[in-house]
């Protein structure tokens, strides 16, 4: 009797958590770059996690590359004109 009760409690709490997790996974899928293409398909959570990992790695790599390029550019260009150009482009 008590085991049944505890089992039903466990299953009800895990059901709520599963829904939450599915909701979070779908939100994560919406953030990925291929969200527009795959929005109609029901993709598995594992593939969403895999795509997320790949996306984060690519973003880190791009940040590294951009840092290197910025370092090169800042060394060669005049500081004040660079700052003026940046601020102009951000304001417009």
């Amino acid at each position: 009797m008590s085991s049944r009760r505890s089992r039903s409690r466990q299953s009800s709490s895990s059901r709520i958590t599963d829904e939450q997790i599915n909701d979070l996974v779908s939100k994560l899928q919406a953030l990925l770059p291929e969200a527009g293409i795959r929005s109609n398909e029901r993709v598995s959570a594992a593939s969403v996690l895999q795509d997320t990992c790949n996306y984060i790695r690519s973003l880190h790599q791009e940040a590294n590359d951009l840092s290197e390029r910025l370092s090169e550019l800042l060394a060669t260009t005049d500081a004040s004109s660079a700052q003026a150009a940046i601020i102009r482009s951000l304001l417009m």
Partner: protein
Amino acid sequence: MNRKNSNKSRNPNKPTLAFYFLRALACINKKTSMASYNQRSGTIKRAAYASMALAAGPKRAWSRAVLCRVLWWGSSRLHGFPTRRRPRAFFHRRVRVADPKLREPSKADVLRRLVPGAKAMDLSRLLEETAHYIQYLRAQVLLMQNVVGSVSD
């Protein structure tokens, strides 16, 4: 009501991101004694992550973890401590070829390694942090592309 608040706090504030990053760049520019190209690109990278974490605020585990790492890095260099004591994995990522026959970590564990500060989180919190982290990381990368584009013109 709660959902609206969480949505508002999720979207990265682009002017704030730009402010922190440009301020850091201006400081880096002034210190022309940094002759080594590698040093300066590493400094710019750390400045990018630090400004991203500052814009995100201290309420997120990943932003706190990133700021801790940047501050630790900065203080250990200032005091002349050797910077090799702690694992440098975050700022010096190197691709390691893993043995495919070893036990493969689950996808969630791989994600826990990629998102800073997420090592001990349960799955639901991990997914939330990841979503927030991706939004800010993407905004930071876009900002840096803008900056590079405008400086190189």
